């Protein structure tokens, strides 16, 4: 469903993605971890072309993402994206946030879009907040709205860029619960996270990155219990002792 072929990207002199080859089949849950600056956020931001690549190819659902002629609107409609800092639209209510793309991108009738939005909000357990503004919600609630907003376009793929890193500890659980639910529905997901509990529970594979390279990739059990590289072992010992 998602394929990286020899992908390279530089920020100035910094080689952020170094010869990435990766295949993510439909329905897979891939957890991406690694030290900060290792390129993991950049990796998933390339999938919906929030970042451009300089070399190589990324193919999503047979669509070459970095082709000039690619219809980006169509591509992005298939991919939901959840940011670390939520980035809800502060001037709109929760419902308007979720409805915005269906109404304006898919041109769905407002009343139908509202029904869809309410369904997605129900899924994240926030129907009763639909008329609140983002600033009136807790961080965990905001992130759940952001997930509902991503789901509103009925995407086939959901990308999560450190979805719980900006949250107070007691709010992490509610967001992870919503994500676990998505997994059970068969959503294809790429999740940049250090939540090892989440990874062990639902990930099909864990990908470990360092210095723009894929250092190691395997099942969660194999990765956490028997890392093949010293770099991965060091990283795991660091995040587990904290």
């Amino acid at each position, binding site marked *: 469903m998602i394929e990286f072929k020899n992908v390279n990207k530089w920020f100035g002199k910094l080689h952020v993605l170094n010869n990435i080859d990766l295949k993510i089949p439909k329905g897979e849950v891939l957890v991406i971890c690694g030290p900060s600056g290792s390129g993991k956020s950049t990796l998933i931001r390339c999938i919906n072309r*929030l970042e451009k690549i300089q070399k190589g190819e990324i193919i999503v659902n047979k669509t070459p993402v970095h082709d000039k002629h690619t219809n*980006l*609107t*169509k591509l992005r409609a298939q991919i939901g*994206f959840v940011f670390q800092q939520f*980035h809800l*639209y502060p*001037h709109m209510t929760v419902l308007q946030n979720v409805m*915005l793309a269906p109404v*304006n991108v898919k041109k769905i009738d407002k009343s139908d879009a509202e029904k869809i939005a309410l369904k997605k909000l129900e899924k994240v357990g926030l129907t009763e907040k639909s008329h609140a503004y983002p600033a009136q919600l807790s961080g965990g609630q905001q992130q759940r709205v952001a997930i509902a907003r991503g789901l509103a376009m009925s995407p086939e793929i959901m990308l999560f860029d450190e979805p719980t890193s900006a949250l107070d500890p007691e709010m992490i659980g509610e967001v992870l619960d919503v994500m676990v639910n998505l997994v059970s529905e068969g959503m294809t997901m790429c999740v940049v996270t250090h939540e090892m509990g989440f990874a062990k529970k639902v990930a099909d594979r864990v990908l470990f990155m360092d210095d723009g390279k894929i250092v190691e990739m395997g099942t969660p059990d194999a990765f956490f219990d028997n890392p093949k590289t010293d770099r991965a072992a060091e990283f795991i010992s660091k995040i587990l002792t904290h």
Partner: protein
Amino acid sequence: MMGFYFSRLVEIYPFFLKGLWMTSKIAFISLVSCTLIGFLLGIFRSSNSIVLKRIVGVYVAFVRGTPFVVQIFIIFFILPEWGLQLDAFPAALLAMAIMGSAFICEIVAGGIHSIHKGQWEAATASGLNLVQQLRLVIVPQAMKVILPPLVGQYVLLIKDTSVVSVIGVMELTRVGWVTVVRIPEGLMVFSLVGVLYFSISYPLILLSNYLERKMAV
């Protein structure tokens, strides 16, 4: 003495009303055109296109770096030599549009820059095109930052319409000049001119203050 002043006032006030009407007309048309052009330029100025950014940057720098009177003279006296002959009224409107849009451009660009990059990214990721991103997500939020200085700029623009009197447009200031030549009560004449300008700009000053308080959250 007061009776004398009063009879003078009765004698001259029709001219002043005409001047006030002309000033209002120039001000209104200018505010609308400056706002439209200013927003467009401001959006260009904050775009990712280096070429657009530079072109608008040069325009803004040139307009802000030269006196308004000189700009009016260029439009009214120099453009005809290049084949563009304008009457005083359209020349005045053109000069106002060029000058005002440059200032409003900077206000708008500043407002757009104040919006967090994540808002653009969220809108992009959800599939909105550039125009939709601006219209639905960025500009509505930027208005909070833009509105107070924008209304302040309107006050300045209204006062700047007095400068177009130099090319003979019969607006309030010009009426003052012409009147003073005929009657000697200069203090009264220009006090009246001042009061009339004030009557247009003061409501906007109040609005600007109000917006400043309301948006400062």
